[in-house]
């Protein structure tokens, strides 16, 4: 529960508030050097904001959080959604609050965020890493949880008509998984595609402003500044599948055909799960039932 009091305390001394609320997370990451610039204080400052979204606004339900290992590296592979990529943030919150051994998730993000002054530092301090194969390798070697959205930026810019339709996955993540022998964990997220219904993509504005896309939603760009970024209170469901261990020798990482085939199969798995969850969902704004929480159903 996020209350006004908890926000006040976390504003005054974010680190202490985090230590009190989430001691094992604090113990795990306090005073640990990070070469990509993770900063626990920034994380502690912003965590309540996203936790508010998680608990009150989106009322996120998570299935199968126990499928994520407490130690060791793993790649989280998901379907990308939402114009502001909140799906990654929600999984980060789930991992730091609902998991028996809270961990951080390092998301690989596109270069564009690093061209924005202010945002780039904030992104790095909350744990995001610029998406290159080199960085991903380093993270995996450091036993971190690495989050990858293989649809890339195209996935974020989907229009409302294309909601929950996965674009073809880039096979780079399979290459990494085979090379470093780490498990893949597919994650299906329902809800993200409807928080900012994107009707059209104005390409001329996007080019002018050097943005990857210029969306037009019911709120953006019509309303004054903070209001246009307020997401609709869609109720989310995150379904985490069982880890997939790829039994291939590391040399196989160079086999492009094999990588592409595995990437496709994982893409199809997530798409099938999305179809199933959408069929199960009663309506966009009605909450998922209480017993959904913790019940894990993975195909």
């Amino acid at each position: 529960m996020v209350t006004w009091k908890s926000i006040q305390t976390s504003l005054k001394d974010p680190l202490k508030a985090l230590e009190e609320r989430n001691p094992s997370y604090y113990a795990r990451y306090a005073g640990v050097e990070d070469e990509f610039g993770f900063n626990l204080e920034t994380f502690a400052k912003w965590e309540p904001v996203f936790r508010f979204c998680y608990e009150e606004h989106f009322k996120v339900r998570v299935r199968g959080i126990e499928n994520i290992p407490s130690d060791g590296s793993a790649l989280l592979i998901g379907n990308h959604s939402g114009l502001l990529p909140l799906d990654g943030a929600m999984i980060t919150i789930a991992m730091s609050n609902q998991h028996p051994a809270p961990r951080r998730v390092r998301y690989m993000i596109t270069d564009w965020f690093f061209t924005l002054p202010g945002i780039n530092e904030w992104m790095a301090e909350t744990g995001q890493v610029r998406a290159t194969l080199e960085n991903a390798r380093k993270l995996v070697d450091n036993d971190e949880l690495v989050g990858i959205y293989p649809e890339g930026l195209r996935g974020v810019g989907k229009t409302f008509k294309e909601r929950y339709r996965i674009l073809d996955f880039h096979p780079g993540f399979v290459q990494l998984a085979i090379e470093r022998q780490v498990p893949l964990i597919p994650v299906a997220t329902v809800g993200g595609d409807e928080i900012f219904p994107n009707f059209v993509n104005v390409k001329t504005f996007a080019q002018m402003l050097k943005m990857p896309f210029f969306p037009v939603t019911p709120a953006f760009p019509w309303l004054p500044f903070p209001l246009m970024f307020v997401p609709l209170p869609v109720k989310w469901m995150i379904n985490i599948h069982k880890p997939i261990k790829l039994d291939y020798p590391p040399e196989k990482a160079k086999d492009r055909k094999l990588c592409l085939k595995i990437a496709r199969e994982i893409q199809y798995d997530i798409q099938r799960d999305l179809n199933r969850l959408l069929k199960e969902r009663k309506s966009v704004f009605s909450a998922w039932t209480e017993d959904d929480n913790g019940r894990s159903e993975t195909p």
Partner: protein
Amino acid sequence: MKAFATRHKQFIRNSHKSEDYFGFELRTLAKLEPGLKFLYEDWWKVEFKNLDAIPNEGPALIVGNSTGLVPWTAMMLIYALMSRENPRRVHVVCDMDWIEDERVHHFLRELGFVPWSSDNVKRLLARGEIVATFPEGIASTQKTFSQRYRLGDFDWTRLLSGVEEGVKIIPLATLGLDEAVPVLFNADKIAKLLNMPAFPVTPFFPFYPFPVNLFSLPVKWKMAFLAPSQYKKETNRDKVEEQAKAQARYLEGEIQAEINRMLRARTHTFAR
């Protein structure tokens, strides 16, 4: 009849060779053909990609997605393969046990529909016929507009005979039907009363008298055969089942991904 004979000379010649195992009747198809032609060419303006994927000779199993009670997809497939350069007859395998009305049952069989059973499929494939199946099964009749172009689970048992016989399995992606016949909701209670798997309520059905209630919107259809796959003939039962399961999952994903791609590339919904 005469016009049909001149238009589809090759088809009549080819289908003469394949006997009427399950009560196929060329006359019924000939009667329906102008209607199918109108739907295919003028109303839905079906754009069929890669139609040559079907071999001119020998067996093949077509696996597709479908929606609704009226098997429009199957009919369009029958017409497409009938009117191409090397025409072939398609045997559409589907659930027909729930149809109690003998006349409807008969009519469908005369068009080339075959009641679904592994045995029937195997027999047809062994004789070198083309079989089409829609493995979503009964669940596909219950789809509503909000679930448009989202595939249900594929029933792997429907692929079993194809994998066992080692024939070419050709996926078929169809875009258009889910919007051409927009199902607003499913009247479960009426369906139960009438002993039907689903009772779809569209803007036209069941409100208008008979031919009008089958009215559909002139949505542009796109159909495409995707890359075929083939297995070696296998006799080990466990292996066959495993392969069929894997194949069903793969085909479902493949067809869904192709539909997603088609939707993304589509510039206008209605045919013009």
